[in-house]
């Protein structure tokens, strides 16, 4: 047996083990309440994160520094300064996520007709019929299509660039009056 064979064999064993492990996790959460909760948490996470970031960027950085120079460590600053100031944004995100989670079912299900299909409902219907192969193929196409469109948008719109402020010009005596601001 060559060394390469050995490595290949070990790799195969490891892959098999990993699949078994993943399989056991899949079995453990399938059909439980946990999987429903996890689904809603992950679906609504961007809303909460976005709201948090937006509110955080509104807070003057020197508040944080003022708290630090007054002797507060990170956690104290978070609890007494940042969280109270983030409260409105957090409440809004919580309410929005809660309402969305409670009423989750896409309206699109009720809107598609035989004439105009929607990719996701089409996939669900294939799954219901047991056509897993077709459903997975559609999923793959959808993912590739979305990646392409996102890439295109990035290329067209581009990223925003913000430079640091310019370093000052030296106030010369050459001009009359110097620069007694």
């Amino acid at each position: 047996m060559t060394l390469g064979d050995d490595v290949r064999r070990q790799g195969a064993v490891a892959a098999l083990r990993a699949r078994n492990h993943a399989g056991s996790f899949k079995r453990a959460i399938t059909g439980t309440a946990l999987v429903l909760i996890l689904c809603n948490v992950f679906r609504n996470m961007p809303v909460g994160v976005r709201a948090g970031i937006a509110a955080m960027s509104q807070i003057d950085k020197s508040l944080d520094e003022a708290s630090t120079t007054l002797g507060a460590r990170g956690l104290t600053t978070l609890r007494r300064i940042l969280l109270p100031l983030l409260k409105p944004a957090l409440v809004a995100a919580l309410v929005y996520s809660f309402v969305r989670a409670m009423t989750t079912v896409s309206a699109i299900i009720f809107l598609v007709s035989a004439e105009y299909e929607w990719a996701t409902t089409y996939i669900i219907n294939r799954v219901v019929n047991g056509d897993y192969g077709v459903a997975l193929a559609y999923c793959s196409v959808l993912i590739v299509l979305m990646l392409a469109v996102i890439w295109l948008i990035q290329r067209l719109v581009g990223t925003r660039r913000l430079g640091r402020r310019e370093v000052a010009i030296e106030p010369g005596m050459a001009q009359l009056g110097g620069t007694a601001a």
Partner: protein
Amino acid sequence: MKAASIEFRNVSKLYGEIAAVKDVSFAIAEGSLVTLLGPSGCGKTTTLRMIAGLELPTAGTIAIGGNDVTRVPASERDVSMVFQSYALFPHMTVLDNVSYGLTVARLPKAEVAERAHAALATVGLTGFDTRLPSELSGGQQQRVAVARALVLEPGVLLFDEPLSNLDARLRRQMREEIRELQQRLSLTVVYVTHDQSEAMAVSDRIIVMNKATIAQEGAPRDLYEQPSDVFVAGFMGDANRVRGMLTRIDDRLGELEIGPLTVRLAHRGLANGAVDVSIRPEAIEFRNGNDADGTLAGTVRKAAYIGGSMEYTVDTAIGQLFIVSMAVDRPLAVGASVSLVLANHGVVPIASA
């Protein structure tokens, strides 16, 4: 209060390749008010933030009260800071803002209340306890920020351009109050500004910074009257920069020729030959009668009445000169021919760069 000294030894701060502060050393005595003065981007605020511990130096050591604090985090340093934007906590009342440092230190409630009220009284804000920062004027917010910093009785108090958000009248009043407070409580204060008149009014000593290094350090009067280079001369008040020829007379005095003018002044150890000369605008005087010997002929280009004095721009053979004259009742018209002489003070030879 136990005011602490500050010492910087060969401190540098790099952001990537760019040096914000380059090999800076200075010492600040306890109980003194020292200003870091310089144009924006010169490294003065970075220096202040390194004293507070909000920036850590790339190289060198910082000592406060004789103890090396180079790697001590900001929350553990015996230093308080008044921020340019005041940085009052907007969701807390005035009293809660001032009490913050004490409650974080878990002092007993009675002591917190007593010390917070005392600090508010120190800055003249008794009775404002329950107001929110947004309900205060700029000057009052400034006082709350000072009270909040004072209440911890820090060894060092830092001010980062504290007056830049106030109007001119209030600025003068607040700077006098800060100076008065510093003297009364004999605090060690480090003060950052880009306004030289503000720096001269409040400071025991001034450290002028330029391009990440110290350009000159000294008492306000020394910096104004004995600038070490043309940058300091130009930054510490208005100055005309011209060229002159210096001839030594003895080991103190020299004779300086500037065009047709000659003045006797201290040569400051400079060698004979061409030198740069800094002339303060108030050091140039008008002489009656044209073309007198030993005077400089000129033509008035601009004249502005600014209340207590006149400001002139005059074209001469040695270049355009900016002149401040106290003779407001006899203003000169634009286009008038004048003869100029130099006063004994306000003319300083500087080594050519």
